């Protein structure tokens, strides 16, 4: 991950760390903090704890989001403080932000959404405009395309060519990755080509869009990865307390980000805790692709 971030993230980039509540590429975010990347525009539908930490570490010049909370636990306190102190931001509804990615990824000039989309955000976000449908004459709200400079995704497995397979909640992963100029996939496992090619419908992103694959077990902790580990609810609760006090945030960043030597070290230092999050096995019924 260290090499991937060094090679593919440039100060000033628009970065999208993907994953909606599930499989959030935390290891990538922590490496960006460790390498002290600066002036990033951080985009995520749900900034979550990862962007709270990246904002606290001073990586962000601007935030683009559609829901900024610690799920089930209230506010993201570092982001709230930064916004109050003047951090630039653009706010959307989920549909608007996803539509921006889809427009960006498919080459559309804009994406139309129903009249009234986003409520009063239309008065505050100059990117929200109104057009007339040339066919019916009705009014639509438009959002402009969004193309992240670099997107980080975390998936269960990929092959050596980067063909990336994911199951469970897929959220914004494909839309963020397919619209980005560069994509880094961190994976719980790198598997033989036959495994991916034996079940091609499960591929969420083809390898030709992936610039680097990073084997990073536990790369999404404290978010969950379906079939690997559960959500570390204690870590989310604990961040909700720590993040209220800037001093404690600094201590956390020192201990768990600056003070660790990559994800493997992060895992080693809390192995017994993490082991309790490992989930059991529940296989799906295999499907028959047929044989010629």
């Amino acid at each position, binding site marked *: 991950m260290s090499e991937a971030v060094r090679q593919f993230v440039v100060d000033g980039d628009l970065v999208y760390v993907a994953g*909606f*509540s*599930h499989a959030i590429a935390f290891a990538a975010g922590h490496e960006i903090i460790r390498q002290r990347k600066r002036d990033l525009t951080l985009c995520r*539908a*749900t900034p979550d704890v990862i962007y709270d930490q990246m904002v606290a570490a001073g990586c962000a010049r601007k935030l683009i*989001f*559609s*829901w*900024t*909370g610690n*799920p*089930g636990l209230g*506010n993201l306190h570092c982001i*709230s403080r930064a*916004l*109050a102190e003047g951090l630039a931001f653009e*706010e*959307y*509804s*989920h*549909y*608007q932000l*996803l*539509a921006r*990615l*889809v427009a960006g990824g498919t080459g559309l000039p804009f994406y139309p959404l*129903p009249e*009234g*989309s*986003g*409520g*009063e*955000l239309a008065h*505050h976000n100059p990117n929200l405009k109104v057009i007339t449908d040339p066919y019916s004459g009705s009014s639509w709200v438009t959002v402009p395309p969004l193309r992240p400079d670099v997107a980080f995704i975390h998936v269960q497995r990929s092959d050596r060519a980067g063909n990336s397979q994911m*199951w*469970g*909640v*897929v*959220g*914004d*992963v*494909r*839309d963020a990755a397919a619209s980005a100029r560069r994509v880094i996939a961190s994976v719980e496992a790198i598997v033989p080509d036959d495994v991916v090619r034996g079940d091609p419908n499960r591929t969420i992103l083809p390898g030709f869009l992936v610039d680097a694959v990073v084997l990073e077990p536990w790369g999404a902790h404290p978010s*969950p990865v*379906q079939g690997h580990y*559960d*959500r570390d*609810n204690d870590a989310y609760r604990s961040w909700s307390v720590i993040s209220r006090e800037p001093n404690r945030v600094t201590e956390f960043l020192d201990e768990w980000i600056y003070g660790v030597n990559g994800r493997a070290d992060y895992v080693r230092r809390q192995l017994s805790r993490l082991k309790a999050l490992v*989930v059991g096995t*529940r296989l799906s019924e295999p499907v028959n692709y047929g044989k010629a």
Partner: protein
Amino acid sequence: MITASRREEMLVLGARALQGRKSVLVGIGQPNLAAALGKCLYVPDLILLYESGIIDGGSERLALSIGDPALVKGAAGICSMFELFAYYLGGRRIDAGFVSAAQIGRAGDINTTVIGSYANPTLRLPGSGGASDIALLVDELVVMMPHEKRRFPETVDFVTSSAGRAMTVITDLATLAMSNGELVVTAIRQGVDPDQVRAETGWPVGFKEPLGSTPPVTAEELAAVRRLDKDGLYS
């Protein structure tokens, strides 16, 4: 006899409000608990959808987030967020939305964005998420929230989701619905005085005549709510 708390009663009423529906897009927090309760008690065929893209989610334990793996196991399907918002919401395939709110105003506008002005808020809330899209693209919205004066201002500080469709608001004191462009009280809880509802509402709220009363929570409903929420996650 063990009686339900006002909060437990509110959850049960949220569950009852889902009767007669086919598909509901559910927000996280108390609506999720009430929706799970409604499915288990009244509408076993109810399709619950989550903005994470989970369709007819599993319920082996209560979810703490709408992307919780607990909702994935046993789900009928999982799609991308964009597919959910574009095809199922945008295509107007979902009957109702079930959400909570920080503020709701006389005209039925909902605020989950800021308290105070947008440029210089006294408190920044999480924002829309899918709420504004849900409110725009379902036929009816069910809102569940505590009945407090600061949450029921005449006009909200910020319109996250604008009014414009049928709406039922379920609180710990009363049930409200839209009538002639404003929210009016349609039922109050047993033992609640109408003056208490007036005192906790930021405008001279009207009462529908005749006013409905709320049938008491049954022992079965109470047992179900306590079983589902045994850890008090959303209390």
